[in-house]
């Protein structure tokens, strides 16, 4: 049973599972926010796809005889040839647009010469599989190789020296083209010597469109995920209801030399001389504060408690703001993170009146996994912290023209779990 807006996706998923005739019944969207009487009416009403009674679809799905197609299933292979049919540049640009292989902006056509040059940016075999990607859980995994990453890097306008960073981002296995209905985007933080080697910008406009390395790497990561996973097509492989502009490109370096605190990669077990990429899945919200001024605590509390409980804050702070926090006694990131965790308190009833807390945190709570179990046991009006210290992260960047603090929603994710930067050096 699905809701009707997922019809194309549900049927495509059944097809790629080898069972295109899987019995599927549909009720209207949404389920969320509907009371028992409204859901009862869905069940007693018509399937909005077949226009037949919903329960009839369900019962016949369980008892109707199987056809030859049901018994055989569907087997097929899809080829993605190395080379496309030769054509003019104009026609090839149109082909890429028509096939939704771009982010709709112009691309650099990936000729063999350009790919060969791009591949000089890494010592890895072009045929090596970098990651298996998919747009969402329960979708099929597609494999992406070093060469295919290079193809998308060329398309994005990246340079060969950017390739190890792009490979590290893709190797995280975290797609920058999530199909989540919530409109995820994926931000990434670069640490270590590579930042200077390839001329990334951690100064004025670090998160803006003012530096080729920052933006081309972010765009290449996104295009590699889009094409590597088999697409990001609205209604099929992309279901983000509103969409997210951060999905074009959101990669930036930490201003390690101007930060008073240890950089992100050193906080997570790497050495200063290592180069890493840290991936944050989220981008649901962005809040801002300029200070710290006299009432910074109240303002921070409001930002923290306004943050979505499933998407903890990645605090991006200008070096001038970071140094001001040091003056307030926060002489390392961990102290400020601890303060944020202790002050991100909301009533338990508010925490659990959340779609994602209910869907994702509640099963862990019921299974006794902390801190979700304690949050679940709390009385409705008990104030509970929405974020454990390990959920919150601080990164320093910016041009010191304003003591700005941005909070982005972001789950720090690596290849094998949370809070794991990816090695860039491994992809040189």
């Amino acid at each position, binding site marked *: 049973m699905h809701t009707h807006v997922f019809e194309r996706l549900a049927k495509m998923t059944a097809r790629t599972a080898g069972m295109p005739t899987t019995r599927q019944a549909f009720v209207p969207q949404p389920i969320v926010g509907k009371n028992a009487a409204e859901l009862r009416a869905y069940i007693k009403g018509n399937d909005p796809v077949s226009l037949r009674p919903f329960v009839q679809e369900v019962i016949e799905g369980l008892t109707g005889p199987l056809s030859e197609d049901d*018994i055989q299933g569907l*087997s097929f292979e899809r080829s*993605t040839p190395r080379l496309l049919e030769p054509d003019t540049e104009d026609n090839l640009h149109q082909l890429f647009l028509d096939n939704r292989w771009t982010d709709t902006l112009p691309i650099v056509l990936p000729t063999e010469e350009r790919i060969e040059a791009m591949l000089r940016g890494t010592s890895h075999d072009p045929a090596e599989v970098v990651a298996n990607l998919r747009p969402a859980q329960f979708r099929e995994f*597609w494999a992406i190789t070093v060469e295919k990453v290079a193809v998308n890097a060329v398309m994005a306008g990246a340079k060969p020296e950017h390739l190890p960073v792009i490979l590290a981002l893709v190797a995280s296995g975290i797609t920058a083209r999530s199909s989540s209905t919530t409109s995820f985007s994926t931000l990434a933080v670069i640490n270590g010597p590579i930042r200077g080697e390839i001329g990334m910008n951690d100064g004025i406009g670090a998160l803006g469109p003012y530096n080729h390395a920052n933006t081309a790497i972010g765009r290449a990561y996104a295009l590699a995920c889009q094409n590597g996973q088999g697409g990001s097509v609205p209604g099929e492989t992309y279901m983000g209801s509103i969409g997210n502009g951060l999905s074009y490109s959101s990669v930036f370096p930490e201003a390690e030399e101007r930060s008073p605190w240890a950089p992100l990669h050193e906080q997570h077990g790497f050495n200063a001389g290592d180069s890493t990429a840290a991936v944050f899945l989220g981008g649901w919200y962005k809040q801002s504060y300029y200070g710290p001024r006299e009432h910074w605590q109240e303002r921070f509390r409001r930002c923290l408690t306004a943050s979505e409980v499933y998407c903890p804050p990645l605090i991006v702070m200008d070096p001038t703001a970071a140094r001001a926090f040091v003056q307030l006694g926060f002489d390392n990131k961990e102290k400020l993170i601890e303060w944020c965790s202790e002050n991100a308190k909301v009533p338990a009833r508010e925490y659990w009146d959340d779609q994602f807390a209910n869907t994702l945190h509640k099963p862990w709570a019921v299974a006794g996994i902390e801190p979700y179990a304690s949050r679940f046991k709390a009385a409705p009006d008990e104030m509970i912290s929405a974020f454990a210290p390990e959920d919150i992260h601080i990164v320093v960047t910016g041009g010191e023209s304003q003591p700005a603090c941005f909070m982005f929603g972001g789950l720090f994710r690596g290849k094998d779990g949370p809070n794991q930067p990816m090695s860039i050096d491994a992809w040189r």
Partner: protein
Amino acid sequence: MAQQISILDPRGYPPKVVGKQLAPRLDSLDGKSVYLVDCLFDNSEIFMDEMRDWFAANMPQVNTKIIKPRESWVDDPDMRASIEADGDAAILGVGL
């Protein structure tokens, strides 16, 4: 005439799709045990309660049981084993 060029396909490599047979259908639901698999999306619990109540009111000869996976959006082999052990059919739902 404009010059033609050759370029690379940007897509990754999809897996081979292997056809699978649908599970045998039942002749009737009378006296059968039907699992209602709550996929744990927000509010799916209430939807499944309503499905159970619909069967109780309209097809009381069907024995329905609500079951949930151990967590959202992951396969739960133990849950599937329970369904295979003493269920005749299963209905999965429902998201968003």
